């Protein structure tokens, strides 16, 4: 009926309280006579009630932090952008100058494979490893020294003919492993190692004789002498000698201090977690300041005491959301296929995907 259609157009405003008293009275008058329209209105009313009864969904935890993070660069740019840019120019100019100077200096090193061959040939002909091992000398230079100055020792070492170098006794020629290590420490990579020497290189430092260490501490000293060449071969930290040694050589204090800084007890796991080795296969890991223990192929947070858990699968949207909102969850997940962890008053049990 046309009248019914017109009246039903007013159902929503009626339910939402948007009709004037006159309009409302007109609709109610029709409803008193039309049971079909009354039923239809009742359906609309139920629909509205059902949706209004749905649980409200609050913004997830950490939402404000997300916004703060998203705004941070903008706040800086908005309030201090010009000043920041002004401060940036000298740095950029310095970086450009450094680049222009460094590229020609580095070019021969990167594009002269014969130099590495030269070192090999020196070693093959009995040259002492210390003659080529320039890294400790570089390390002893002040770190603020210009890069070109730092490069000089390495260049010297490679530019001198092998015949000018003091020859070592044939029995002291290094093993292939030593050659490999030597090349690693003398190739251009050593430039990058000025501030960050690898533990292996530090280990090498502990093997240096006292005379060599003293020479290294003083950059003005001449290159390693024949005395240093006749020094015994490497001794590892744990006291095991690589080759037969007449007398063990103690590490110089300065170098030993460097070596002490090397991570001997804890290592960085691939997820950035600190892993306790404890000298045996790991059954306990610390991730994001939480301790996890491995039991029955499940990594559980140490303080988990059997409380009810909410199950999560790795391919679920909730898991992705949690990872997004709480990055540490991804670190927990990296522990293994099954992980029990605590987050925001809930114990979660992370399970593999169906395919797994």
């Amino acid at each position: 009926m046309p009248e019914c259609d017109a009246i039903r157009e007013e159902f929503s405003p009626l339910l939402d309280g948007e009709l004037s008293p006159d309009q409302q009275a007109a609709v109610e008058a029709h409803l008193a006579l039309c049971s079909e329209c009354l039923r239809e209105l009742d359906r609309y009313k139920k629909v509205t009630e059902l949706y209004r009864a749905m649980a409200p969904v609050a913004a997830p935890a950490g939402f404000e932090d997300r916004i703060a993070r998203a705004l941070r660069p903008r706040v800086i740019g908005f309030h201090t952008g010009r000043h920041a840019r002004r401060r940036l120019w000298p740095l950029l100019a310095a970086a450009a100058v450094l680049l222009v100077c460094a590229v020609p200096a580095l070019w021969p090193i990167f594009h002269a494979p014969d130099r590495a061959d030269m070192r090999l040939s020196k070693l093959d002909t009995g040259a002492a490893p210390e003659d080529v091992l320039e890294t400790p000398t570089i390390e002893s230079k002040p770190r603020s020294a210009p890069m070109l100055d730092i490069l000089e020792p390495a260049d010297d070492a490679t530019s001198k003919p092998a015949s000018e170098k003091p020859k070592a006794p044939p029995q002291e020629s290094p093993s292939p492993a030593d050659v490999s290590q030597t090349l690693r420490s003398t190739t251009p990579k050593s430039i990058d190692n000025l501030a960050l020497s690898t533990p292996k290189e530090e280990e090498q430092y502990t093997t240096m004789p006292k005379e060599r260490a003293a020479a290294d501490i003083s950059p003005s000293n001449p290159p390693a002498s024949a005395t240093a060449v006749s020094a015994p071969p490497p001794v590892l930290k744990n006291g095991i000698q690589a080759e037969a040694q007449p007398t063990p050589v103690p590490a110089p204090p300065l170098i030993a201090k460097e070596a002490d800084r090397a991570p001997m007890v804890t290592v960085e796991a691939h997820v950035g977690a600190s892993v306790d080795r404890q000298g045996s296969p790991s059954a306990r890991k610390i991730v994001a300041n939480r301790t996890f223990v491995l039991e029955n192929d499940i990594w559980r947070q140490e303080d988990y005491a059997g409380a009810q858990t909410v199950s999560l699968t790795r391919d679920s949207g909730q898991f992705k959301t949690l990872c997004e909102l709480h990055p540490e969850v991804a670190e927990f997940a990296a522990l293994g296929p099954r992980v029990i962890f605590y987050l925001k008053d809930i114990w979660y049990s992370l399970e593999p995907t169906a395919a797994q």
Partner: protein
Amino acid sequence: MVVLNEARDDTDTTLVEACRQGDINAFNEVVRRYKNRVYNVIFRFLGNHEDAVEVAQEVFVRAYRSIDRFQGEAKLCTWLYTIAVNLSRNRIRDRARKGRNLGVSLEALTEDAPGIAQIAASTAASPRTFAEQHELDDALQRCLNRLGETHRLVFVLRVFDGLSYEEIAESAGCPQGTVKSRLNQARKSLAECLKRSGVL
């Protein structure tokens, strides 16, 4: 429906003015005050948490960046909803262009929300009641997702946040008469859908 203390306009005006002066704490207060309302509406409109989080975040970021453009003629929440509506529509178009389904899944409804998981873990209600409630919510959300974008928008703003027709018209950028007819059509379509689903 989200129940929050209605922000007084003068307080909002003060906050907006402070935001314009670069007071980040004032903006934090705006976020704290409106985040749940904005998020709830966006979630119901888009139907999944993944998009809702991103869009809601973008709403506040855009609001902060364009706070100077807020004239104060409308309510702050209406202005926020206007941004939310535009960004949500863009998201729907992006998803459609990429051929991705924007609708909510059962898994999304039952597993996506940590809040729901929390209820599941701690509620005194029986597991059956909890499951039934989620089954119902799923059916309701599915029917809502089947509505056309424009009808769903006005219905969400009206039913989940209680905006007046005038405010809806402002946020959605359409006349009040259109709001009325779209709401009516939305209720009619939802009633039919829910009847087919066995809910009504």
